């Protein structure tokens, strides 16, 4: 089981802020492929991965990162703080 979080327009496109999912995905890229195959909302949200950033257990990482021992993954657009 893994918590998947969505923020900003990724959250709006998918239609929910957080879900707990059962997955055997080995990497974040595998997880994205699994999610994108679900339905159009996910497919659209993940259609351009260059526009999406990802964090594993609250630390920025990349799509090739392993999911071993990861409890929380978050997808969001580039940050615009300050």
């Amino acid at each position, binding site marked *: 089981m893994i918590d998947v979080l969505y923020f900003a327009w990724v959250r709006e496109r998918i239609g929910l802020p957080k879900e707990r999912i059962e997955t055997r995905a080995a990497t974040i890229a595998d997880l994205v492929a699994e999610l994108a195959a679900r339905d159009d909302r996910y497919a659209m949200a993940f259609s351009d991965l260059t526009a999406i950033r990802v964090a594993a257990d*609250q630390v920025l990482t990349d799509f090739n990162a392993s999911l071993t021992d990861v409890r929380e993954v978050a997808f969001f657009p580039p*940050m615009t703080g*300050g």
Partner: protein
Amino acid sequence: MDVRVQSSPFDPGIELNRFTDHLGGAEAGAIVTFSGVVRNRPDGSLVRMEIEHYPGMTELALAEIGQEAMSRWSLLDALVIHRFGPLVPGEPIMMVATAAAHRSAAFEAAEFLMDYLKSRAPFWKKEVTSDTQGWVAARSEDEQALTRWR
């Protein structure tokens, strides 16, 4: 070092004075602050700005950026305050303050904090007018600014 992520307003002047008083004046000669306020759109149509963040990761990211600044410039103290939630034009969004013996360290550390906070702390801004709403796009200049610190 003090890092605060909050929905409630803050007063930049009071924060500057509190930060300065807390130093005790022994070694600090130079204090730099940056404060960001919600800018209206050129046509004055902004009703509010909504700031979303990632609770947990935000505090982690800001603490890490702050510690990096403290050690890299031997700061005497640093402060980061960032709001989330709805804000109206003219309201303070965020503030950083740095204190050092000399001005170049205080200036550089404040710029470093701002550059990292802009592109590495998980905040997202949405602009709301009476009939539109849209997420603020990241600026390539902001990503570019980080190369200065590598």
